[in-house]
């Protein structure tokens, strides 16, 4: 078996107690966004419903990648097990990709549940294209790579603060579950650079065929993905 396969097995064994809990919480979060955010909107027309239905899975992917995964990296750092894993004769990328796989799979049930609940609640039909695979994979990998980059580069306490702040920004101040037009111009401009709106757009585009998954949105997310992967990889290689 390859290093990747062995590490994947190790991670799944290591997390087998917490993973089901994470899946439950993460699924509940995605479903809650669909059902709960309705109360914030005065009227639920088809556009609002589609934003909620497709934004909830994106938020789920973001929360797993930006909050849950870095918390577990911080924990491993504090326990000293991260250094132990770094001393193993394993390619750094195998370690990174094994973790990315675990977090991607963890986020999938929430994604499916949110779409299903939204379809029933709002009586929606999706027009799912094959682009859903790259859109979801790219969003999940980017979120996790950024979360890992943070957790590797910062101290555990700084990571805790940064991830909480990010979740707040993503949940309330990012045009993922609502159109960007509702934001003040300056905040909308900030989201031209940050990856969050683009993530929402590519997932929504792939699920509804509304054309929001533009090439530039994919490119922006891919750039942030590279930033996260390069940061994580560089910090992994760093020696004291």
């Amino acid at each position: 078996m390859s290093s990747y396969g062995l590490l994947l097995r190790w991670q799944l064994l290591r997390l087998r107690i917490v993973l089901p809990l994470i899946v439950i919480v993460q699924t509940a979060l995605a479903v809650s966004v669909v059902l709960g955010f309705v109360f914030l909107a005065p009227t639920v027309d088809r556009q609002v419903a589609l934003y909620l239905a497709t934004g909830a899975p994106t938020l789920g992917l973001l929360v797993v990648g930006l909050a849950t995964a870095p918390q577990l990296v911080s924990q491993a750092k504090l326990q000293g097990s991260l250094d132990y894993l770094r001393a193993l004769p394993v390619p750094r990328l195998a370690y990174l990709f094994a973790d990315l796989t675990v977090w991607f799979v963890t986020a999938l049930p929430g994604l499916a549940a949110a779409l299903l609940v939204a379809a029933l609640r709002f009586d929606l039909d999706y027009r799912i294209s094959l682009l859903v695979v790259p859109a979801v994979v790219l969003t999940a990998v980017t979120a996790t790579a950024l979360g890992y980059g943070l957790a590797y580069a910062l101290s555990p306490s700084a990571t805790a603060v940064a991830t909480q702040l990010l979740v707040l920004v993503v949940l309330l101040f990012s045009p993922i579950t609502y159109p960007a037009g509702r934001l003040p111009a300056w905040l909308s401009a900030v989201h031209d650079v940050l990856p969050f709106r683009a993530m929402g757009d590519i997932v929504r585009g792939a699920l509804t065929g509304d054309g929001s998954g533009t090439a530039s949105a994919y490119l922006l997310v891919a750039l942030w993905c590279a930033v996260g992967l390069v940061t994580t990889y560089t910090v992994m290689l760093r020696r004291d």
Partner: protein
Amino acid sequence: MLDISHVTKRYRRRTGAVLANDDVSLRLGAGEVVGLLGHNGAGKTTLVNQIVGLAAPTSGRITLDGHDLVAQPALARRLVSLQPQGQVPLDGITPRQAIELLGRLRGGGAATVRRRTTELIAALDIEEWATTVGNRLSGGVRRLVGFCMAAVVPGLLVTLDEPTNDVDPVRRTALWSLVRRLGDEGHAVLLVSHNVAEVERAVDRLVVLDRGRVVAEGTPSALKARVSNPLRLQILLAPGVPVPEAPYGEPSTLDGRWWRLHVAELDVAPAVAWARDLAAAGTALEFSLTPTSLEDVYVELVGGRTVDREGVEVVV
């Protein structure tokens, strides 16, 4: 095999620069078991971290079998297997699973790794916990599993950082014989410890680090021969009694009420008679004469406490 040459490691901290290793040189041959002794903070773990590529020396060279480990940290991780100072990550995973996974990650074949895992678990008598998840294991068992993870597919060099912490005496003995066997199989073993008395039984040679520098190196008996007075007189002083003047035995150390003096062989008879007089006068409660241990040599090398004539402890 392992050649550490003039390695210096300086860390920058907010409080200023810390010199963790200062011009350290040492060699280990194939099949040799070498103990690296030193106080907490003497620079032992820093040296190990540089060997396995977790830290890079500020200056100096580390080679193993001719390969430059500093330039090739990925190769270092393949050639060196490590039991870290901290506990190995066993949450959610059983000892058998962890040891087998490590063996496979180190490139061992499935059948060989399974057989070797069974052997190690049996040799350390930890079968009853072999399928218990790590969260429920005691510190000592986790430590032993950490050793097995380093030994299941050993590298050319095996580094063991405090392998017997929290381990019971019977299993310690079993572990030392496994360490010896690694040496007999041709692996170089670097054994990091501050447990002087115990390491003495397992090693061919000792290197003593103090404040980042190598202060002594040699076989246990060669190190013991450095002490000119090879016998030690231990006297338990009565409570409240001032430390008397010592006509025999210099230097002396005081540990609580235990007063230890090094005695030359020629002085043994009068020194014992003197100690007997102290006991008769009520100054001493008991006394004994023993050969100088490696621990005494170690204390002398890296500094301990001595007493001056007024019985005041002085740090040397």
